[in-house]
């Protein structure tokens, strides 16, 4: 389905943990709670989050008001323990907002158990079917599938690789550019650096 499900190439060394919270309907109390929830998330220093690309300098207080309007927000962490701490705080606050975590199933299972939470509903990816010959090198799609809406183009990855090889951009600069098209803020820039490095 959507956002972060079909991330390709995830393994135990990927350091890639994605958080999503969403309110169904327009209950004003729950929307306030969504804003509260994101203050907690931002406090735990995600690498990237919804709104970062569009409003890089907006303080957490104002960003959380944006989530109230969009009724959804996302964030990506490279440290599982940071996401775990955020989840524990959110659970303790009993905010009543739906939360979805993306990552390796064994990791999520372990963390849910420690938090005393169920794996209520699970979404499995069966991968890409159909005309796979239309796809580039799988290393490229490991980067581009970090944006579930497909806004990071295959060509942008290839183009940035050329610039890195020519010494015109660093790996970090290229990764930063790759995070920008994804308005949900779920492209993991540290993972992008490692994937680009592996393609040089």
């Amino acid at each position: 389905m959507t956002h972060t499900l079909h991330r390709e190439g995830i393994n135990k060394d990927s350091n890639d943990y994605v958080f999503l919270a969403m309110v169904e309907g327009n209950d004003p109390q729950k929307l306030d709670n969504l804003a509260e929830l994101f203050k907690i998330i931002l406090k735990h220093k995600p690498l990237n989050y919804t709104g970062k690309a569009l409003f890089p300098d907006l303080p957490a207080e104002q960003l959380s008001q944006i989530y109230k309007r969009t009724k959804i927000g996302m964030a990506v962490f490279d440290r599982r323990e940071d996401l775990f701490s955020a989840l524990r705080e959110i659970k303790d606050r009993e905010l009543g907002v739906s939360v979805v975590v993306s990552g390796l199933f064994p990791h999520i299972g372990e963390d849910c158990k420690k938090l005393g939470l169920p794996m209520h509903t699970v979404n499995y990816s069966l991968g890409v079917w159909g005309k796979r010959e239309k796809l580039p090198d799988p290393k490229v799609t490991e980067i581009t599938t970090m944006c579930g809406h497909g806004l990071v183009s295959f060509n942008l990855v290839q183009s940035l690789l050329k610039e890195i090889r020519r010494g015109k951009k660093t790996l970090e600069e290229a990764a930063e550019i790759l995070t920008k098209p994804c308005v949900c803020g779920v492209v993991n820039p540290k993972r992008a650096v490692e994937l680009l490095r592996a393609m040089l």
Partner: protein
Amino acid sequence: MKISPDKCQTCALCLPFCPVGAIRIKGKKVVVEHEECVECGVCARSGVCQDGAFIKEELPWPRILRAEFSDPMIPHKKTDIAGRGTAEMKTNDVTGRVKSGEVGVAVELGRPGVGTRFTEVEKVSREIAQLKIPLEEANPVSALIRDPEKGTFPPEILQEKVLSAIVEFKIPLERLEQVMNLLKQLLPGLDTVASVSLIGCSETDGRIPLEEFLIKKKIPFYPNGKVNIGLGRPLKP
């Protein structure tokens, strides 16, 4: 999207940003191929054009569908949800959309990064309709269906191209094998890719019957995925 020929300095720096490769050089001009552009807005938002040459056009029906299905900044009218317009399992702890014993199925045509026309989406929706399986109501693809018994769209939308669109439905677990067999036959014949996903609930003892089914039937699935961790409960009084 259009490029102003007066403002464009033909630097071509914008070309790689387009997710579907619709920005091209024609002669000595950089142009957006109207038929290929999915109106996702990435080019204009990227800030790569220092000359302000991108022009966002007013999009009439049915071209507006391109933006609704490709630009996550634009919510779908039917569901009031941006992106691909469906909440699917994200709020399943509140909505109970997929229940114990059921499987949610999503076939996302065009993903990753290839795009699709509604001709290909209709090939899937027609086959699902043949099986007498209703499509998920709270999904913008379902809202476009003109004849639910046949799974067909209005003819004027068929050539519209979008980054992706999700055919979404739910079935009893017992029907999953039948649906999987259909998809195995159908999807290789489409002129695009499709990302396929399934949703299942855990039982009170922690078992997930859908996962057990996939393992038993040797249907491969990614080691990573999405889990709704059940925090979306009613507020405390």
